[in-house]
C-alpha cells in the first residue's frame, strides 16, 4: 500500500464536510425554496436597507477593530520579540493565553463590567469589547514574524548609518508586514461575521452581519441566509486572492 494513500480517509472527509456543504450554500443561495432557480435572494442583499446597512456597519466596526488592534498590538509584539526588553517566552504566552479562554465568557465578563460601571452598551462598548477579544489574534502572528526575523538585518542597517527610526521603517516594518496581514485576516473577517459577541456587547442594539445571517436561519429563511453566507464566501475568496502573494510562507498559522 502506498503511503500517500493514507490521506484518502481525510480526502473523503474534506469532500463530504467541507466541499459539499459549501456547494450546498451556493445551491440554497440560488434556489427559491420550491425547486426553482432565482437570484432574488442575492438581490435582497443590496435592496434590503436593514441588511446592507448592517453589512456596512459590520465593515466599519471590523475596520476600526483591526486598526486599533494593530495600533495596540504591534508595539506589544515588537517589545515582546526584542531580547533587550523581554527574554521570557512565558511573558509572550500570557498575551496569547486569552485566545484559549471561551470568547463568550470573556465577552460576558466585559459586558458585566460595563454594566457595573454604568456605561451604556452601544457602539463604544462594542469596539472596546471586540478589541479586547481579538487583540491576542493580532499580537500572535506579528510576534511570530518578529521573533523569527534575523536581527542582523537591523544591525547591518544601523552599521551602515541608518538611525534606529529609519532602520525600523525600512527594515523591520516591511519584514513584519506578513504578520500584520495574517493578524488583520484573523481579526477582520471574524469581526464581520460574529454574532453572539455583538449582541451581548450592545444589548442587541447593533446587529453585525453574522447576527443577520443567524436571524434568517432562525426565521427558517434558509435560502436568504444561504445567500448572505454566499456573499461572505465571495468576499473571503477575494481577500484570499489579494492576500495570497504575501502569504506564501505561513506567518500566522497556529502551530504550537
Amino acid at each position, binding site marked *: 500500500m*502506498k*503511503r*500517500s494513500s*493514507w*490521506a*484518502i*480517509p*481525510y*480526502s473523503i*472527509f*474534506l469532500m463530504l*464536510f*467541507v*466541499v*459539499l*456543504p*459549501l456547494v*450546498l*450554500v451556493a445551491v*440554497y443561495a440560488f434556489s427559491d425554496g420550491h425547486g426553482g432557480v432565482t437570484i432574488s435572494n442575492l438581490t435582497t442583499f443590496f435592496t434590503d436597507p436593514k441588511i446592507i446597512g448592517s453589512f456596512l456597519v459590520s465593515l466599519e466596526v471590523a475596520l476600526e477593530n483591526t486598526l486599533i488592534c494593530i495600533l495596540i498590538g504591534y508595539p506589544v509584539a515588537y*517589545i515582546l520579540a526584542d531580547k533587550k*526588553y*523581554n527574554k521570557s517566552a*512565558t511573558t509572550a*504566552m*500570557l*498575551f496569547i*493565553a*486569552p485566545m*484559549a*479562554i*471561551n470568547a*463568550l*465568557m470573556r465577552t*460576558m*465578563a466585559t459586558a*458585566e*463590567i460595563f454594566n*457595573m460601571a454604568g456605561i451604556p452598551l452601544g457602539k463604544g462598548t462594542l469596539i472596546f469589547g471586540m478589541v479586547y477579544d481579538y*487583540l491576542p489574534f493580532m499580537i500572535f502572528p506579528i510576534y511570530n514574524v518578529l521573533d523569527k526575523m534575523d536581527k542582523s538585518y537591523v544591525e547591518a542597517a544601523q552599521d551602515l548609518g541608518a538611525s534606529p527610526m529609519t532602520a525600523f521603517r525600512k527594515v523591520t516594518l516591511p519584514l513584519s508586514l506578513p504578520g500584520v496581514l495574517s493578524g488583520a*485576516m484573523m481579526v477582520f*473577517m*471574524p469581526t464581520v*461575521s460574529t*454574532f*453572539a459577541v455583538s*449582541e451581548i456587547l450592545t444589548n442587541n442594539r447593533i446587529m453585525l452581519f453574522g447576527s443577520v445571517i443567524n436571524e434568517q*436561519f432562525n426565521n427558517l429563511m*434558509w435560502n436568504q441566509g*444561504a445567500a448572505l*453566507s454566499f456573499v*461572505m*464566501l465571495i468576499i*473571503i475568496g477575494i481577500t*484570499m486572492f489579494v492576500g495570497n502573494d504575501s502569504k506564501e510562507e*505561513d506567518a500566522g*498559522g*497556529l*502551530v*504550537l
Partner: protein
Amino acid sequence: MMKKIFARAYLAFVLFLLYAPIMFIAVFSFTKAKSLGNWTGFTTDLYKSLFSGASAESQNILSALGTTLLIALVASVIATFLGTLAAIGIYYMRGKKKAALQFLNNIPMLNPDIITGVSLFLLFVFLHISQGLVTVILAHVTFCTPYVVLNVMPKLTQMNPNIYEAALDLGATPRQALSKVLVPQLLPGMFSGFVLSFVMSLDDFAVTFFTRGSGGLETLSTFIYADARKGGLTPELKPLMTIIFLVILIVLIIMNIRSSNKNKHL
C-alpha cells in the same frame, strides 16, 4: 533605561487590560451578590453551590460542562488520528494532488465560524441527518483536523525520511515501522494538534449553535449565550469561569516552559 521602563510599563498596561474582566469575575466569584461590583462579604458559597448541584441552574451548568468536555475530547481524539494519517499521506504525495489537498485543508481555517456552522447545518438538512451530539462532534472534527495536519507536517519535514525505510529493510512490518519509528517522531506535533483542537472545541460557539439541532443540547457556550439573552449572568458561572481560566493558564504555562526548556537543550 528610560526606554526599558516605558516598554515594560506598556506591556503591563496591556496585560492588565486583557485580564481585567476575568479578574473581576474571579474576585466577585467569592461573594454572594448577584450583580457584579456589589461586595457582600467573602464566601465560597457559589463554589459550593456549583459543585453540589443544589440548584437547577448549577445542575444545568455542570451538565453543559460535561457535554462540552465530552465533545472536545472525542472531537480532538478523532481529529488527531485523522489529521496525523492525512499529514503522512500528504507528505508522500506529489504535484497537483498534494497542492489541492493542502488548499482544501486551509478552507476550514479561513472560513468564519458562522459559515462553517451554516454550511454544515445545510449539509445535515440535505442528508436528512437529525442533529444532535453526533453532528456537533463531526462539525468540531471538521474545524479541528486542519490544525492537527498543520502541526504534524513540520515534524515530518524535519524527520530523516530514510529511517522509516531503514526500519522496513531491517525487517519491521509496516505496522511496526509506523508505531515504533514514525509515531514517536510525530508525537510532539500530534500533541500540539490535540491540545489546540481541544481548546478550539471548548471555545466554539457558532458551529455548535448551528449543528446542535433542537434536542436541547447545551454546551457552556450555548448556555452562556442563552443566559446573556435572558439578561444576566447565572451567579454559579463566576466560579466556573475562574476555575477554567486558572486551569487553562496553568496548562499553557507548563507547556510553554517545557517547550522552551527543550529548545535550550538543542
